[in-house]
């Protein structure tokens, strides 16, 4: 039982990047020499172990090689060098419903898909009702899959994948399956897998979730394992590597507009006016924006937005919404926003600043997620938001003392 569920030993993987892909024999013969390609090392000498029952997160930016590693664990692609040993049936939620044939009915596809995933006919028979029940497609199961919506398609795919009784589950990125209710059902099921002691390997670039649900993690960067072990440490290493240290920097976000109003300077400071880029939960964030307007503009509005690492807008507002409309702009102006009591937990956040007409139709200057700051957690709570919590424990019944 001490054997690792997934054992990756000195695995390297190269891909060929063809400059001009010669895919016909004639081209190869005419060109004489072999098609020109560059070897690209997607992974370099990676070794890691995932113990049985562990939930292991692979984090890294896009193109770091983490998905390649997951695909190799799943056996879809083979390593160039090295060896991967897995113990127990694997189900991968990489591609839901891969192999569904549009001309077959849902029922026929369930059997086909289940056998692709390694299930015998008997096992599928046994699980069939539950699969259909989970997918909530009872009324459509004898309909050809070509008439399914994409949501129904994925739901059926997910239902089959989780019913193959896997010992190891591979999950890529956040599940974006169907509507919210179904998504919750999926996540509940994954959590149940965790409780049942199954091994889960999952890949993400949203690092925040990793310390919450993983026992182990590895940070992969440009094909190398940069950090491995305790999830919190791994995520810290990831953040440090990706964002560098403390400095406020205008990351290369999208910038557009005709610059009739120009964002000259942006400063982040705390309530006392001290310029800073690292805040703590509960701090005030003061944002001051210096604008330069060469010619008088009458129809104008200034807006800001704060985004999390995945790019989701957490808050967005503008001078109109905050009841401070700008009558007109000319010359130099300073606009100040204050976000009181920052409610976020640990993480990196980005700020978007935009100057547009009141109806948003014309953009003077827009800087998408061009500024960033970090937030450190100040309290003991975990999660995404730092909501002040108080606890009260009250004894409601007499305690029975058992005397011996």
């Amino acid at each position, binding site marked *: 039982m001490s054997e690792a569920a997934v054992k990756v030993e000195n695995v390297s993987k190269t891909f060929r990047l063809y400059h001009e892909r010669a895919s016909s*024999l004639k081209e190869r013969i005419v060109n004489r020499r072999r098609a020109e390609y560059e070897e690209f090392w997607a992974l370099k000498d990676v070794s890691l172990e995932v113990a049985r029952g562990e939930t292991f997160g692979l984090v890294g930016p896009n193109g770091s090689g983490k998905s390649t590693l997951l695909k190799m664990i799943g056996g879809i*692609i*083979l*390593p160039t060098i090295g060896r*991967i040993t897995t113990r127990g049936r694997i189900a991968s939620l990489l591609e839901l419903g*891969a192999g569904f044939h549009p*001309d077959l009915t849902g029922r026929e596809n369930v059997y086909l898909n289940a056998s*692709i*995933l*390694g299930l015998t006919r008997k096992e599928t028979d046994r699980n069939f009702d539950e699969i259909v029940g989970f997918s909530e497609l009872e009324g459509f199961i004898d309909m050809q899959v070509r008439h399914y919506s994409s949501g129904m398609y994925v739901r059926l795919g997910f239902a089959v994948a989780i019913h193959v009784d896997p010992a190891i589950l591979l999950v890529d990125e956040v599940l974006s399956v169907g509507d919210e209710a179904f998504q919750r059902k999926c996540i509940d099921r994954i959590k149940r897998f965790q409780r049942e002691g199954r091994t889960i390997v999952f890949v993400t670039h949203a690092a925040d979730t990793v310390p919450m649900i993983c026992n182990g993690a590895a940070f992969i960067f440009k094909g190398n394992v940069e950090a491995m072990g305790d999830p919190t440490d791994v995520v810290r290493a990831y953040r440090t590597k990706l964002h560098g240290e403390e400095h406020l920097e205008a990351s290369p976000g999208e910038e557009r507009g005709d610059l009739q109003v120009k964002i000259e300077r942006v400063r982040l400071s705390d309530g006392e006016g001290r310029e800073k880029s690292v805040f703590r939960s509960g701090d005030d964030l003061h944002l001051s924006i210096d604008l330069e307007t060469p010619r008088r503009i009458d129809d104008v509005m200034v807006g800001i937005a704060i985004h999390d690492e995945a790019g989701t807008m957490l808050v967005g507002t503008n001078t109109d919404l905050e009841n401070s409309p700008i009558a007109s702009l000319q010359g130099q102006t300073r606009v100040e926003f204050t976000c009181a009591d920052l409610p976020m937990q640990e993480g990196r956040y980005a700020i978007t600043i935009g100057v547009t007409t009141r109806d948003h139709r014309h953009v003077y200057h827009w800087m998408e997620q061009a500024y960033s700051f970090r937030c450190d957690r100040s309290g003991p709570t975990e999660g995404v938001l730092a909501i002040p919590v108080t606890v009260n424990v009250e004894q409601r019944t007499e305690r029975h003392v058992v005397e011996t």
Partner: protein
Amino acid sequence: MSVEAPEVRVVEPGAKVTTRIRDLVRYHELIVNLVRKELRVKYKNSVLGFVWSMLNPAMTIAIFWIVFTKFLGNSIPEYPIWILSGILAWNLWQGSLGMAVGSFIGNSSLVTKVYFPREALPLSSIGANLMHFFFQFIVLVIALVIFRFPISLATVVLVPAALVTELLVLCGFCLIVAVMNVYFRDVQHLLELALLAWFWMTPIVYQVAFPIEHLGKISTVLPKVYMLNPMTSIVLAFQRGIYQHISYRDPSTHAHVQLLFHLGILWYLRNLAIVAIVAVGLIAVGWAIFRRLEWRLAEEL
């Protein structure tokens, strides 16, 4: 969680043959399901369904009978039986290769996204065509009943032996063409041309004695070269087993026409055995090529 021993899977370049065989056995239901899928998909939304599989040989009989017997004055007795005994084997051959060659490209969404033993795809192409073969065999049986053809020892021995031999050869060839086509898409076009020529190099619509005699006049080597075609041995065994007449007397010219060789069942069996042994070698080579090229399969698609 399952209590049985966990499935241990090793993912590494150049996996061992024993591992591969064990994998294939574990996934045998997948092959069955892929075959079922091919058949279902082929006749989905068609009213007649698999009857189409049987109409094909029925049509073949009609056309060849009209063209060869009526227009060209061919005098082979019970010509439809003669044609069917060869063409069913050929349909299996052509159908399997034609389907296997595109099996990876046609199922690229599977290959790039899910793990399963890749051999299952070309093998299921053979399986699907074997099912067609059985449907078409029903037509043959009906024709045998109509023409009151007897069944003999030769039928019972040669037909199954020839079928097994053909399947073995197909396994080797299908593995090779399927994987090669992923790297060079020319393979499928080349195969199409090759099959066209191959059909006429095999004694299906004409009798084997005919090319042997004519080629023999040119050189003594050529008849031997002709016999190297594995399909010749297979088709001859089918003809000997089903049609059974070795020669006949032309009713108009009263000439004695040779159809098959005046040799015993053992001679046909020996030929099949040689082909089968070569086929086993072909499977070994084909599988080696397959495993060599397979590691980049998902990336090339």
